[in-house]
């Protein structure tokens, strides 16, 4: 039996320990905010925060995160008012929106590690997250806004 804490709640799994965390979250725990985009850690749509680090849930097995604390988009802030989420809305970032949960989790992890990232640091940290609609200019502006408040 594998135990994990997801958004503050204990969850357990006694199936295949190799099951990617992504599918445990989506199909078993019903937390569908975390998205499937590539399955190979190439696009970042499945980004969650494990302890304080951004992790791609599609290549992370449930066994790898046993006993650890996982935050998904649903648990980032109780009212959805994390500074990154607020900045995202202020800048009107999304088009289709599908990649945005992963983008927001990546940005939140970046700001935990580096509260005032430079232009180049934002671009580098966010480059593992693909947006096919092409919202990069706004993503960059929103991360900047969240880090500075302006």
């Amino acid at each position, binding site marked *: 039996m594998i135990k994990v804490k997801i958004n503050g709640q204990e969850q357990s799994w006694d199936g295949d320990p190799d099951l990617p965390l992504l599918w445990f979250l989506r199909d078993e725990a019903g937390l569908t905010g975390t998205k499937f*985009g590539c399955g190979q850690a190439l696009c970042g749509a499945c980004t969650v925060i494990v302890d304080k680090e951004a992790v791609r849930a599609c290549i992370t097995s449930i066994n790898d995160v046993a006993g650890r604390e996982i935050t998904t988009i649903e648990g980032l802030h109780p009212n959805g008012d994390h500074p990154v989420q607020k900045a995202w809305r202020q800048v009107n970032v999304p088009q289709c929106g599908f990649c945005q949960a992963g983008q927001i989790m990546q940005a939140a992890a970046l700001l935990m590690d580096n509260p005032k990232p430079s232009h180049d640091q934002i671009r580098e940290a966010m480059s593992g997250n693909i947006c096919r609609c092409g919202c990069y200019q706004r993503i960059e502006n929103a991360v900047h806004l969240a880090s500075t408040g302006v």
Partner: protein
Amino acid sequence: MNFIDNPRKLRGFEKNIRVEKVSRRSILKGLGITGGFVLAAPVMSRQAFAYETGAGKMPHGVVVDPRVFVAVAPDGTVTILAHRAEMGTGVRTSLPLIVAEEMEADWSRVKVQQAHGDEVKFGNQDTDGSRSTRHYLIPMRQIGASARTMLEQAAAKRWGVPATEVRAVNHEVVHSATSRKLGFGELAADAAKESVPSIEGLKLKDPKDFRYLGKGQIGIVDLHDITTGKARYGADVRLPGMKYAVIARPPVTGGKLVSFDPDAALKVPGVEKVMQVRGWPWPSKFQPLGGVAVIARNTGAAIKGRDALKLTWDDGANGKYDSVAYRKELEEASRKPGLVVRQEGDAEAALKGADKIVVGEYYLPHLAHVSMEPPVAVADVKGDKAEIWAPVQSPGGTREDVAKTLGIPEGNVTVNVTLLGGGFGRKSKCDFALEAALLSKELGVPVKVQWTREDDVRHDFLHTVSVERIEAGLDKSGKVIAWRHRSVAPTIASTFAAGAKNEAPFELGMGLVDMPFEIANISCENPEAAAFTRIGWFRSVSNIPRAFAVQSMVGEIAHATGRDQKETLLALIGSPRIVKPAVKDMWNYGEPLDSYPIDTARLRKVVELVAEKGEWGRQVPKGHGLGIAVHRSFVSYIATIVEVAVDDKGKLTVPRVDTAIDCGTYVNPERIASQIEGAAIMGLSLAKYGEITFKDGKVQQKNFDDFQVLRMDESPGVTNVYIVPPGPDTPPSGVGEPGVPPFAPALMNAIFAATGKRIRNLPLGKQLEA
């Protein structure tokens, strides 16, 4: 008042309804595919507006009826139906916003509800072709005005005053003479009893009184849900007892399963069943490719199970498709005469007599859509009833296809449209929903079919592959006197009709025969090209290779004559005029040419605007260059300037992009800017990396590692968007697609300016490193 209930009984336009024979999709006209008799409701007002659109000619036309689209609850909440699919353009916000504007509803008290697929009830729902605003600006205004009129009539009756004395203002009806007011909620029940006013008599708002339209201050309705993970996409649908499926499909289009061994797959924990999925003979339209499905308790188990399958395939007739050999065939075909699709003057003779001939042969490979959400669908089929939840661009078409595939009446099929995690044309083909329906029928439980990214890359309905060859003949003064453009590309028609080798009018009309330059001798030709895989619509479609070729050629002519790119471009466009190409069956994005002519004044205007705002001709540092391109597509006009920087190792960066768009009357400039910003990213993506290749009939790419798309670290430093203010009564035109085509040629013209290297073959790849 609940306008939505019982729309059949209440439908107010029976007298206008006529029975007409329409094709299943108007775009397929000429492919020999016709549907049955359907009801169409031609309810466009000709009096209130100076123009007409092609909306009424779409399958099932347009329905203008407030009782179908609007509901007002006693608490004042106004619910407005969104009947088009949201894939990121903002249409789920924009169309209801038009209704709210005209109705005088307060947007903060409006709820948007997604309509299911039912084109008889809602009118055409096929969300592609950059048509939504252009076809629905007027009908949505009429719906809003009808609802407002009914509320005003109800209030006037309540007060015993003439309806002309009352006026709806911001969610209330006001009688100013007596300072009385009634909220929309208080009037809801009475308003529902009012008859629907005739369209001809409707009073529409004066645009100067608009609170929302054209302003751009309203965020998309799903913004909060998207940022909190609550927004529901196709894959997010979960039903009790639902099983998860992935499918192994034939690696070659049209291939067949010979045998399979399910034993190892069945041993994977969580896998419950392995079963064959029916496939259709090629060309299979939107029908499934067939294969073997693995059914499991979660998607992860299903994928692991599929990896363990042992499969033997017969590759069939397309097993020899090879991109290297095919490209040579296209190039050879482009060097010989082909079917003449536009002829003015005598291009052959003029080329022979020319002082100089500039020749460009341009190649653009297959492209995959790779929307961030791979295809996915949930189906629940019980007996002769089916319910689908899916991210589909055409819920009406999906409903028809599910009914046909399962052999049940269309009325027994419900298609629920989720948000689309990107579409770009891929999700106008509903094969994934049909797979889910077939599996659910067999299993008797709800089934979700999830495509992996590898499935998506390998089994897409790809953007065509093309060679565009242009020969421009110049006289002694450098003036272009002859233009011959041969376009060779497998046609989308081949996905529907075996052996189709010439492009359809809707492909020829995308930048080939509608070429707007003022040249005396023009020949446009379309040599034949056979298809060996599924070809489909990809955002901007044939405009991508056409604009790439035509606008690169402008750069080449500028170089050959030693003139400025922009001046050369304006000289080729010529005088402000309406271009009337000598073309039989001229396709104009489904729009009448008198409302949507090819207007070179507007084309010139976007060039001049982008040149002014984008500071054309500015000094740039060494290694930098500026390129410009303009293109009319989806009846909009758009021009782009790209600045590039190329370092001595050939590394490319794009510091700045400027784009000017004239899309006529518009609704939400904020979303227009976001579409154009995104188009620059997609344009740079395809120009830099976009290439799907085949060997032995199989796609050689699989995921974002070998089919790369642009990431943030390579994206333009800044993208500026300028929107041309519309003139009075300028019809609305497309926004979702027009941004992509001018990007690649502007980029390549900029690269030439920076390096002197002319890139004629896409993608760019490592060509600058040589």
